[in-house]
């Protein structure tokens, strides 16, 4: 979707943290990405390498942790886990689901020196 904007958001967080914590380099940066976040991980990894150049996270290892997608089923009023955004309810087979989790795009932590 907008992986370059996301990479720039990560760069902003890295730069802010570098100032706040006084580190010079990031070795590993871990993201949490929800299943429904619409993030193309390969594209984000590519943009990450480009956008981190000249900053503390240049050359850092990027790890992405998947978070599950969850939705509230309007038919059986239960919160369920679904793999795909348009999957039916695994309990009742209903097709009216409102996503409640899975759109996360977070920087979880960083290993820094």
């Amino acid at each position, binding site marked *: *979707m*907008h992986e370059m*904007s*996301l990479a*720039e*958001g*990560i*760069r*902003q*967080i890295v*730069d802010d*943290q*570098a*100032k706040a*914590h*006084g*580190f*010079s380099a990031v*070795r590993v940066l871990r*993201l949490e990405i929800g299943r*429904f*976040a*619409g993030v193309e991980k390969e594209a984000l990894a590519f943009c990450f390498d480009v*956008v981190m150049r*000249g*900053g*503390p996270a240049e050359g850092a290892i990027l790890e992405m942790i998947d978070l599950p997608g969850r939705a509230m089923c*309007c038919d059986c009023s239960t919160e369920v886990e679904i793999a795909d*955004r*348009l999957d039916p309810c695994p309990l009742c087979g209903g*097709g*009216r*689901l*409102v*996503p409640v989790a899975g*759109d*996360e*795009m*977070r*920087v*979880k*932590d*960083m*290993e*820094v*020196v």
Partner: protein
Amino acid sequence: MCTVCGCGEDRLAGPGHEHGHDHHHHGHSHAHLHFGTGAAGVSVGDMSQARLIEIETDILAKNDAHALGNRRVLRALGAYAVNLVSSPGSGKTTLLVKTIGMMGDSPLAVIEGDQQTENDADRIRATGAPAVQVNTGKGCHLDGHMVGHAMDHLNLKPGSFLFIENVGNLVCPAAFDLGEDAKVAILSVTEGEDKPLKYPDMFTAAKLAILNKVDLAPYTDADLDAYEANLRRVNPLIEILRVSARTGEGMEAWVRWLKSRHAAKTLAKAG
């Protein structure tokens, strides 16, 4: 000066900048903002010991902070903002021009987002409504920061409607909060009944879907009920209006929707 972010001039200087005026001075009526520059460089002190820093910060946290700032400004003014999102060519600008003509005495203003040109803002200004064009340059969506600047230029009147016409794109604008009260997705009947299934994120984020150009439905074999079923499949809570901006069909219901939502927000604030 920026009231939300206090950012520097560099963020506003974009590519293809050929107008002779400074885009960061405020108060001229034909505001036209350029964006599209990247992250700045940085240098920091040296440390030797490896350590783990917990961050737990949303990647779009900065955008969300700008959006929150915009939302506070709108609330203080008693203004109601809609973020109009759609594919290119769904008829957003025509819908907006016709809507402005039906809003009566309600104060309103428009923010137009496109990658290039000031054409859409010119069409809005021809109605007499104040409009700011934001050119996103390389960007495929408006963000909270751009909209905050555009709001500074507009000098919104208390109780205004603010229409934000996003860049024609059904993917990226879904993730970028602008501080609006509602996203309104516009879908024209020539786009295909399965479009909500192909681009679920945007229709999930929208409170209202406008099924536009319904006057063309008989000529395109469009199945309007199938459009509605697919919209509700993606978002069971979505409201749907069938509209033709060209013939005026459904336009009164759309204007009623806007005014009732604005009134509900005003009531909630007072309560």
